[in-house]
């Protein structure tokens, strides 16, 4: 069977999108001292066939898109997921009113890829 090539507009391709998380919005402003929020971002978009290099696909993802293009009903596209995350530090009050500075890994999406 020949692969079905569906054109994908650049805006719908898998990439990191901006997402600002405000601690006030999640009701944590009473105990988080700083920061007030941070740019967490998220991954969203399609992983179309053929996977270009910019989509950071694994060999498996490349094959999966190929199979998906042949049999879209039974094989989904690879997922658009974070492949590089960075950390943030948070300053907060704990339950004993101690001031705590904590370093948290994997809080910010820097790069997305098809996996």
């Amino acid at each position: 069977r020949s692969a079905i090539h569906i054109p994908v507009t650049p805006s719908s391709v898998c990439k990191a999108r901006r997402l600002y998380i405000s601690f006030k919005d999640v009701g944590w402003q009473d105990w988080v001292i700083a920061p007030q929020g941070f740019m967490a971002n998220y991954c969203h978009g399609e992983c179309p066939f053929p996977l270009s290099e910019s989509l950071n696909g694994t060999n498996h993802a490349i094959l999966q898109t190929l199979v998906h293009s042949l049999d879209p009903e039974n094989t989904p596209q690879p997922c658009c997921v974070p492949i590089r995350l960075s950390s943030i530090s948070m300053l907060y009050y704990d339950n004993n009113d101690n001031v705590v500075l904590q370093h948290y890994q994997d809080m910010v999406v820097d790069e997305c890829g098809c996996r």
Partner: protein
Amino acid sequence: PRAEDTNRQEQLLLRSLGLSGRPRPAGSHQPRRQVPSALWRMFRRAEKLEALESQPCTVSEYGVRGNIIRYVQDQGRLVSGWSRSCQACLEKHLFFNMSILQPVEVLSLAQLEIKLHWKPLSPVQLLQGTQAVAVSLYKVVRSTLKGANPKANRRLVLSQSVQLQRESTSITMDLTALAESWRKPGSNYGLILELLPLRADPEEFLPFYPGNSLPLQPAFALPLVQASLVAVSLNPNQCRSRRR
């Protein structure tokens, strides 16, 4: 059901952040503790370093591994008048709740910071009066029962004289081993801090708190003692290696 789901999601996230639940908001009757300036500096520095991702989970300010820095508040009380052995001393019980550390955390450093805020009665007193204090720090090894001799239950860990500065004087001390021992349930009886003013002329001796025959001294004659335990710990689950 939606609210329940939201709560469950929040619990999952808080747990992954190392918290058992959402810390309670500050009580309306009591102002929140100020953030120590050193911690603000570390936070600002960490923000810059995170962009570079250099040396994650290392606290360069203290030269140890760790991803959590806590300023653990002193929950001890002033024991003014409690000591029968030292009528002229100011005694302060120091207690730092180390059970707040999760069992998985590795304690890298516990540094005691004591600040003495000293206000002399008058400028003349500053010149003629107390210029130094003898500082003694005792580890309490057993619970002190009423009527028992409290001295029998303490062990000296620090004794030094400290020159008083005009407004405040700081003392720091490494208590990592002791703080580690406090993590075992039922083993933390805290510390006793004893301050004895040293004066050139013993006749002018002004006790921090009155003996039986002396009138009550004004409150501002007392130095304000503020103690914090800076605890640096590493949660290995939150500090994975970048090589996977």
